[in-house]
């Protein structure tokens, strides 16, 4: 539920939370992202950075440049203004994924668990629009909303020690992508050749909170071609603006 008035919560002497609701909900998250964009657009002096999450925005500031009281006033004013209509549009980003085989060792397990064929899992998982609620947990890791409950599968009881970068997985009723190689317990159904996080790139993360993504199934041959293009810096990301 969206609160009638946003709540300001303390994050100590140099950060405040602006919380918009009490659930994981696209409309609540939209307010979080709108406020983040509005603060950036307004260029509020003393604001260092802000971190969007499902239902709140954490705003870091320099207390000797702007007081918490003044910052709350600025936020309140931005929320009252019709600035939302002038904010940049959200993007829909296509993520090519090769499902199954060596790229998705758990695709069959996910299919069996949900009484589906592997082709059905791929069809249900791809071509759907997922909202990127937030980035967190590790650099570049997207928290996605919108996976069909038909694909929900529990985590592995024993996590794998090494999951390759770009692996697409399912854990409970969530789906996500591992930006870098790491250990993990998600059921891995495929892999993307795109690099979700590159420290030397600006911005370093491919995805950002508030945008959408969709998975597009590609063959292992196409995977290799895209991977090569990514490596050479010639890959053109497929993205469209969302109305």
């Amino acid at each position, binding site marked *: 539920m969206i609160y009638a008035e946003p709540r300001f919560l303390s994050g100590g002497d140099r950060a405040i939370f602006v919380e918009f609701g009490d659930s994981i909900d696209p409309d609540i998250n939209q307010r979080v992202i709108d406020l983040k964009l509005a603060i950036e657009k307004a260029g509020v002096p003393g604001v260092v950075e802000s971190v969007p999450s499902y239902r709140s925005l954490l705003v870091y500031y320099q207390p000797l440049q702007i007081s918490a009281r003044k910052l709350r006033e600025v936020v309140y004013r931005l929320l009252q203004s019709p600035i939302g209509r002038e904010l940049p549009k959200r993007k829909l980003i296509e993520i090519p994924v090769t499902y199954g085989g060596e790229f998705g060792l758990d695709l069959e397990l996910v299919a069996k668990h949900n009484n589906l064929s592997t082709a059905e899992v791929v069809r249900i998982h791809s071509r759907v629009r997922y909202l990127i609620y937030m980035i967190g947990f590790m650099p570049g890791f997207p*928290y996605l909303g919108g996976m069909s409950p038909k694909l929900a599968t529990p985590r592995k009881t024993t996590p794998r020690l090494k999951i390759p970068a770009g692996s697409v997985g399912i854990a409970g009723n969530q789906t996500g992508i591992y930006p870098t190689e790491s250990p993990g317990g998600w059921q891995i159904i495929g892999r993307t050749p795109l690099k979700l996080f590159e420290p030397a790139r600006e911005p370093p993360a491919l995805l950002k909170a508030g945008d959408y993504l969709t998975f597009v199934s590609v063959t292992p041959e196409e995977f290799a071609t895209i991977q090569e293009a990514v490596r050479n810096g010639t890959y053109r990301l497929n993205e469209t603006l969302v109305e």
Partner: protein
Amino acid sequence: MDIFEVIQPGPLTTVQDLGRFGYQQFGVPTSGALDNYAFRIGNLLVGNNEGAASLEITLFGCQLCTLHDTSMAITGADLSAAISGKPAPAWESVRLKRGDVLSFPQLNSGCRAYLAVAGGIAVPEVMKSASTLVRAGIGGLNGRPLRQGDILSANERSAPSAAARMPAEYVPVYGNQIELRVILGPQDDYFTDEGKSTFLNSEYIVSAQADRMGYRLEGPRIQHLSGADIISDGIPLGAIQVPGDRLPIILLADRQTTGGYTKIATVISVDIPKVAQAKPGDSIRFPQVNEEQAVALWQEYEQQIETIKSLLHP
């Protein structure tokens, strides 16, 4: 200009600056020197700007061989620093000659020492910062702690720095019992009154799980109203998270940018350096203050650094 060869790195020696800002929205922790005070003073002592990259040396065992004459300053924890076996003064600028061996053999007080060198340690900036985030392999020296045989370079600087010594009254004393003042929130309403009172009135001990990401504490358990889980949100520096085991964790510079456990309070900025210098076994209390008091203390802190700056380089 190569200035040091690493003979022994010690358990954790990393390159740090004031931190990496603007990237938490992409899941990248800020990192940066845990002890902002000792770090900034070290740079001022050698005539650097206060944010120049320095070494953060944890506990004991680090040994460096000097490859080129330079000036340096050691601040923060007392690790019995020595130059070729002779005690090295701390909190003042010191000349090092080629061949000098700088060592940090034994912990006397505090937990982290800072070694600032004239010009600052030269490493490529990653996302506009020299700070090392070991967990993600980002920044510093190839994203990792120092290793035996590493060669460290300093940025060239034209003017040699004048000798400088920190006035004794500004040198902090690191005890084994500290008070960290806190502001309640953001989720203090997820705790019972008894839980909040337990937190504010008990003594906690720093456990062995204490690192740049966070300090797990041991002591009386803090009662939640109805559970420790929240919808994940951002984590400020100094946030005190209380997960399902009901024991507090103080979250520091390498913390995850977001998390799904209740946060009962936040340590105020001026007291973060005290956490940086606490080590396993030390005891902590959490007196409550309000935001105005915290900001007034921060203003004093910044004024003190300005005063020190003018005393060092009049």
